[in-house]
């Protein structure tokens, strides 16, 4: 049964702290044994049982005495058990289950007692074993070994699955140390008992024959202990994978004891060899299961990590994308807000202009009209005549201002005609030349361009305003206004829309960035009070926008200014047809 991916991902993300955060621990000590595992376990048990039954008739068949069997077999056993113990201590550290600590201790005990047993075995390292003692020593060590391990398993089974609830973080190293110390002490004590206390122990061994362990009821007792451990495991609810394999171990263990110490009763007979083979098998099951688990966990961890990395990369890309979208949106919103503000200003101005124009124009009728009439009745060289002349000029300025405000605020759609822009520009320049100081040159570079579609009066205003503005920027000094008209090359994204570009460049004072940004705002002016209305360029800008065009400004203080006015060319046949149809409909 594969655990849900999320819990693995959590573990991968949180590393060693997973337990404290309470995410589910994945381990063979907690995973419930699935159908597949149970089937495998049963298969192993049945195979072992069959082997056991097949071996029974030949148990007492003496085989060749191979003294090397014991050290090699028991080395393998010790190493298996030691590794199992280490892995189980590791699982305990992770899950903090006392039952696991007990089981790990059991395996450690096994590893150590096996070594002691091998050392004591007569004829292996020394004629009478290395540890001294007597002929009973090895047999008793075997009995201690096979009696104690089932007790550990029994304790494990009784302690249940509990664990993890207690916060024993700091206790883990201490608990492991204490467990190892206790196990070593136990092994030392048993070794002492079997060697120094040799004479106190009942005799179970005579030569290579140990049938007395059966007759004195010793081996049946340890066999029953193993059976008890097996039953205790069996009774556990929700058997984990570890429990399952421990049961298999106990089965093999039962076969081992039965073959070598209950039915068989002599060293180096078939039962003795076969029993030990079962012992080795038994020692391997849990180890193999643990190793497989460790491997599997590593695999899943690596997989989870790589998935996590992929996800992090994807999220990062997503985040960057949305951040970019947000940036764009903010920029757009700022632009919209600026446009809205501009529109509101225009609206306010429109209302204001509508309101004041009526009254101002009425007021100006007598100011201009009666002044002029009165002037006629006065001698031209009189002071009164001169004064009235000044009043008349002031009134005319006021009249022009009102007209500009009205022109600016007027919302009605301008007329739209096909206009030969090149001719219009030439005519406008001719007309305006007279009002530009003679110290200023006007350099014309008017190319033949496609016609534009617009209001001739308004287009005229564009030319006049930019040229007048340029001449004001030059002032009383010498200077040049360069006016050029060119056909702009259409950009790819404009679907072939051709443009006409009117450039007005002056050698005047130029302007700074702050001024440049506000140049098209209504009522913004750099001219002294009374000399400019601040409407000229904003009116022109409005006209250009109404015509579907745009204006760009390049300027720096002292280096003059360049305005480029782009207007859409009226060249497209379809467009022309559409407009002509619209005109016909009017």
């Amino acid at each position, binding site marked *: 049964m594969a655990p849900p991916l999320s819990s693995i991902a959590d573990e991968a993300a949180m590393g060693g702290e997973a337990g404290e955060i309470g995410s589910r621990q994945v381990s063979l000590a907690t995973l419930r044994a699935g159908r597949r595992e149970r089937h495998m376990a049963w298969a192993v048990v049945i195979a072992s049982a069959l082997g056991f039954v097949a071996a029974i008739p030949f148990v007492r068949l003496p085989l060749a005495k191979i003294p090397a069997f014991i050290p090699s077999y028991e080395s393998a056993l010790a190493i298996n058990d030691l590794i199992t113990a280490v892995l189980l201590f590791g699982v305990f550290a992770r899950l903090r289950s006392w039952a696991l600590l007990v089981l790990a201790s059991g395996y450690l005990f096994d590893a150590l007692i096996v070594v002691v047993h091998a050392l004591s075995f007569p004829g292996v390292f020394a004629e009478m074993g290395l540890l001294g003692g007597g002929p009973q020593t090895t047999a008793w060590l075997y009995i201690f070994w096979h009696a104690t391990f089932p007790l550990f398993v029994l304790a494990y089974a009784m302690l249940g699955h509990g664990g993890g609830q207690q916060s024993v973080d700091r206790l883990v190293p201490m608990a492991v140390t204490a467990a190892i110390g206790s196990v070593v002490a136990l092994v030392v004590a048993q070794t002492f008992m079997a060697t120094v206390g040799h004479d106190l122990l009942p005799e179970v061994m005579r030569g290579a024959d140990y049938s007395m362990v059966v007759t004195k009821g010793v081996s049946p007792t340890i066999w029953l202990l193993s059976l008890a451990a097996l039953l205790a495991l069996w009774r556990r609810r929700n058997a984990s994978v570890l429990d399952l394999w421990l049961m298999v171990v106990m089965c093999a263990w039962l076969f081992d004891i039965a073959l070598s110490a209950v039915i068989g009763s002599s060293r180096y007979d078939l039962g003795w060899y076969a029993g030990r083979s079962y012992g080795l098998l038994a020692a391997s099951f849990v180890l193999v299961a643990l190793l497989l688990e460790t491997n599997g966990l590593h695999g899943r961890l690596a997989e989870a990590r790589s998935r996590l990395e992929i996800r992090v990369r994807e999220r990062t890309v997503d985040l960057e994308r949305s951040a970019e979208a947000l940036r764009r949106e903010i920029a757009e919103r700022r632009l919209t807000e600026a446009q809205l503000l501009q529109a509101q200003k225009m609206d306010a101005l429109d209302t204001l202009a509508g309101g004041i124009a009526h009254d101002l*124009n009425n007021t100006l009728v*007598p100011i201009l009209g009666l002044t002029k009439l009165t002037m006629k009745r006065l001698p031209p060289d009189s002071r009164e005549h001169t004064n009235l002349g000044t009043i008349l000029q002031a009134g005319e300025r006021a009249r022009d201002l009102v007209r500009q405000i009205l022109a600016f605020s007027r919302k009605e759609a301008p007329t739209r005609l096909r206009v030969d822009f090149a001719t219009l520009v030439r005519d406008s320049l001719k007309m305006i030349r007279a009002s530009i100081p003679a110290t200023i040159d006007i350099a014309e570079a008017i190319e033949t361009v496609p016609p534009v579609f617009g209001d001739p009066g308004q287009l005229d205003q564009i030319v006049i305003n930019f040229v007048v503005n340029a001449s004001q920027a030059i002032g009383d000094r010498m200077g040049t206004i360069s006016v050029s008209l060119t056909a702009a090359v259409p950009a790819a994204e404009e679907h072939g829309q051709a443009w006409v570009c009117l450039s007005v460049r002056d050698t005047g004072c130029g302007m700074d960035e702050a001024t440049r940004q506000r140049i098209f705002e209504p009522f913004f002016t750099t001219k002294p009070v009374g000399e400019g209305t601040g409407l000229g360029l904003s009116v022109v800008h409005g006209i250009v926008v109404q015509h579907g065009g745009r204006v760009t400004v390049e300027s720096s203080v002292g280096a003059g200014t360049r305005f480029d006015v782009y207007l859409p060319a009226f060249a497209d046949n379809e467009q022309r047809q559409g407009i002509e149809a619209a005109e016909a409909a009017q």
Partner: protein
Amino acid sequence: MIRRVLVIDDDAGVRETIKQTLDERGYEVVTAVNGARGLAAFRDARPDLAVTDIVMPVMEGLQTIREMRRERPDLPIIAISAGDRAARRDFLEIARQLGVREIVVKPFDPDEFAALVENCLAR
């Protein structure tokens, strides 16, 4: 023969300016401050030409023009506009459809205005 001109405008300055401009040239000028009074003066004085503002209180200029035209379809009328919303094309278009001869936008030059009046009456 002295020509009589009716001037209807709610602005005293405008009335006075037109009056002086036309007095000087020998016209007899009758003035009124709004459309309703203008219409009454129009019926009393039987002017040869009417000059009327378009935007006025009490009776709108366009309404006044309509009434005058109904009673005297041959009367030459000059409309004057303050150049605000009365200057919009739709207003002026209505005025023209009503048979207004000329439309003058304030503020105007007195000499040009007088020439216009002269011209209208000569036709």
